[in-house]
């Protein structure tokens, strides 16, 4: 079983459209949507939830105002600015370290477990999908990602799946690192813009940092062919293989609007481009593991 994560650094380059397309195209796979704070893959795959779990992680301070003697020790020691001057907890700023509760001379502060989201196992027309929803403005997205990755892996092993395809979040922060850990390859979906290149470079650095191979696909490549070439050259110079190019086509937007993957309704040029990306990607990933086996 191989795990592939679709990342981009920059948002809106087409990660979810690409993941949806692979969901429709690749056989014997399981899907995980790791963009837990603004998940969109379910809009294309219409999951029917079969398992639902609460996600609790971390703690938040709660001050019992009846017991509080207003010494302001909590205010003095909190480094997150989570205790206001009138000695109230700002839950959005509290990072749950618990220092205030430990130092309160009258034990008026309690650390309450934080319910920060939900996660699900669902049936879709393209097989099983594991996904989640982080509460508005919550933290610990990295832990939630790790949780659904683990469940996805268990189900993939039990179901003898060949592939786990993961839709990643934008950026390079903690949920991205949690999406990336232990995968066999990153499919980097970029776009031919100067910010697309800038952000792709940061993802490539992250891949190097974790020693995970990265492959590039430039989406909407024909919007600016010159920038596409610049990105591809940058990638080749940095040890990133090119998996393919997907053209800009309005039929892609029409698919998203009607809740379909591009494999179910976009123009042929788009479908064959995605098929090429997958062929190159899967060959390189399985080829690499064959070589590793031989080396062992």
């Amino acid at each position: 079983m191989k795990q592939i994560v679709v990342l981009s650094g920059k948002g809106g380059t087409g990660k979810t459209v690409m993941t949806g397309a692979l969901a429709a195209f690749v056989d014997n796979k399981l899907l995980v949507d790791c963009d837990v704070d603004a998940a969109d893959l379910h809009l294309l795959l219409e999951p029917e939830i079969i398992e639902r779990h609460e996600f609790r992680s971390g703690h938040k301070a709660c001050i019992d105002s009846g017991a509080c003697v207003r010494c302001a020790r909590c205010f003095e020691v909190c480094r997150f600015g989570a205790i206001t001057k009138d000695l109230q907890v700002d839950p959005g700023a509290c990072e749950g370290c618990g220092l205030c509760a430990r130092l309160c001379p009258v034990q008026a502060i309690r650390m309450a477990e934080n319910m920060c989201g939900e996660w699900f196992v669902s049936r879709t027309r393209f097989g099983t999908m594991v996904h989640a929803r982080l509460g508005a403005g919550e933290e610990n997205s990295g832990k939630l990602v790790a949780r659904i990755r683990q469940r996805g892996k268990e189900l993939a092993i039990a179901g003898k799946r060949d592939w786990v395809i993961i839709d990643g979040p934008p950026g390079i922060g903690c949920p991205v690192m949690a999406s990336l850990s232990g995968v066999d390859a990153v499919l980097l979906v970029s776009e031919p813009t100067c910010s697309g290149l800038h952000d792709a470079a940061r993802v490539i650095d992250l891949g190097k940092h974790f020693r995970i191979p990265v492959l590039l696909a430039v989406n909407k490549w024909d919007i600016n062919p010159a920038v596409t070439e610049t990105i591809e050259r940058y990638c080749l110079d940095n040890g990133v293989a090119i998996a393919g190019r997907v053209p800009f086509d309005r039929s892609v937007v029409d698919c998203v609007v009607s809740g379909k993957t591009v494999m179910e309704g976009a123009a042929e040029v788009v479908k064959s481009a995605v098929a090429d990306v997958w062929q190159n990607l899967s060959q390189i990933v399985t080829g690499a593991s064959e070589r590793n086996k031989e080396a062992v």
Partner: protein
Amino acid sequence: MIIAVASGKGGTGKTTVAVNLALVAGSVCLLDCDVEEPNAHLFLKPEWREETPVTVPVPEVDVSRCTGCGECARVCAYHAIAVIPGIDKNPQPLVFPHLCHACGACSLLCPTGAIHENRRSIGIIQKGTRGSVSFAHGKMNVGEVLSPVLIRRVKELADSRGLTIIDAPPGTSCPVVAAIRGVDFCLMVTEPTPFGLHDLVLAVAVVRQMKIPFGVVINRAGLGNDAVENYCRVEHIPVLARIPFAREIAVCYSGGETLVDKSLAMAGLFHELYKNILRVKDETDRCS
């Protein structure tokens, strides 16, 4: 006044709106708080003036004073310290700096005062100017998780008397909250697609919870369907600007150019947007 430009979904045009708005707003401070993937500088092209490292405290153990009692590991809510047998078989604390939130609990609560704090770099802040725009952004080190800390440091550079525009990161979780906390107005950039709408609804939940006045900019208007317009109408959310979907705009963006420098119509659109923000902000202030 501080205006934050946010969106649930990435790639809807936050940076485009933030930079172009800054360029028409006159004397303004523009802060790029997308510290994982800062992009505003690619379009603004500021003249860089200074660069400062951003550090956070990280515990360091003085082995000669440590008794191996394990209190530091017990009080750490982030499992950033483990106490394990050292070379001489005595228990010794081992610090994992990347898990540390720099709360200070271990150093304050160590019974023998064996822990003091060093500084660890998590990224840099770069400052520059272009014309009447003073600019700064944070750039987080690759592999680092403390983006909210860096975001807060960048926000400390806000102009307390004039206008500040903040380019926020995408999503709805802690980095976004750090970027928009305490701002006077939030501009939500979306696109008229099911993805844009879905993530807009999530982002609206966050700003409403934080009680920040807000309005919407629809980018690539005319591309998908009417669902975003309908949602805004039903929810009484003001749509402050519509940037049309046009290949020329996409090409202009792809080359790192700003829209207001390229077209008079766009300059007019962003002037109008700025006026609309002031009007809506004024109306909400009077209501509350």
